[in-house]
């Protein structure tokens, strides 16, 4: 990562609409989505190819779920930064995701303010309020 406005992102989600929304939010925030994957297996291949700074990872997907994919990616890239994005609010699911190596956890529906907060947490950037103020226009547009 060169600076906090130029983060390379890999978006992993089997939902077309979630990939589309996440891509648009990151683009508006000034970041670069380098790839989109729809399964855990594809995510691993695309991670090797693009080496993104951050992965946004859905959990429930066909083929291989997000937790398994993160565990495998961590095996060869222990410092990878992963934001889990899932509709599941079960405590056990959160614990599994953290144990697998996720650094942040967003409960769907995903909003711009949740993404800004997670990126801030991952990179220890400015405090959330300051960051939110900086991105106020985008957050206003994208918050549900």
């Amino acid at each position, binding site marked *: 990562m060169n600076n906090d406005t130029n983060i390379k992102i890999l978006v992993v989600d089997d939902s077309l609409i979630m990939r589309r929304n996440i891509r648009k939010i990151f683009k508006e925030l000034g970041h670069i989505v380098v790839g989109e994957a729809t399964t855990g297996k594809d995510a691993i291949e695309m991670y090797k190819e693009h080496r993104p700074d951050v992965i946004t990872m859905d959990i*429930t997907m066909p083929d291989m779920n997000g937790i398994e994919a993160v565990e495998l990616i961590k095996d060869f890239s222990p410092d990878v930064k992963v934001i889990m994005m899932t509709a599941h609010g*079960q405590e056990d699911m959160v614990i599994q995701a953290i144990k697998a190596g996720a650094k942040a956890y967003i409960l*769907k529906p995903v909003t711009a303010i949740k993404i800004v907060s997670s990126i801030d947490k991952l990179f220890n950037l400015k405090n959330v309020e300051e960051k939110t103020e900086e991105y106020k226009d985008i957050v206003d547009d994208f918050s549900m």
Partner: protein
Amino acid sequence: MSYKNCEDTLLSPLIERAKSFFIEDIGIDVVEEKNEKCQNEILFFYHTSIIALSGGIVGYFLMSYEKLILEKTADSFVYGGVDEDEKEEIIESLADEVTNIILGNVLGSFTINGVDTNTTPPIQVTGISEILIFSKKETISLNINTSYGKVLLAFSADEMIF
């Protein structure tokens, strides 16, 4: 678990989350709601998303949507709006995602005797007036009537759950 317990424990959280999603997240008024125990036959609306459940509860959860409510939901949910040439694809994906969010957000209520309930990705059924029969399953359903059309929620599981 009795029907009443099932209604309180499982269906109520789904109903409340569905209502809060449409009212608070999307800005659609909920006019009325009606739930009933049905005879394993469900009349679908235009778009239906079905999620299979395993673990604590074995069964199915589905939500079926009239087209207008999905189009209205897309206005709030889809960032940057929807172009006409991508509308149908987006609407189908939206039905799956809303169903997934509503069930997933309350899945903690589906932990039975310490066993979590797991879900599959949604399966999409498009087309009106289909009737689904879950054999050897009991089904309870709920119609939510909104200012932009109806949404059906149905939960189907082994008879012993009820």
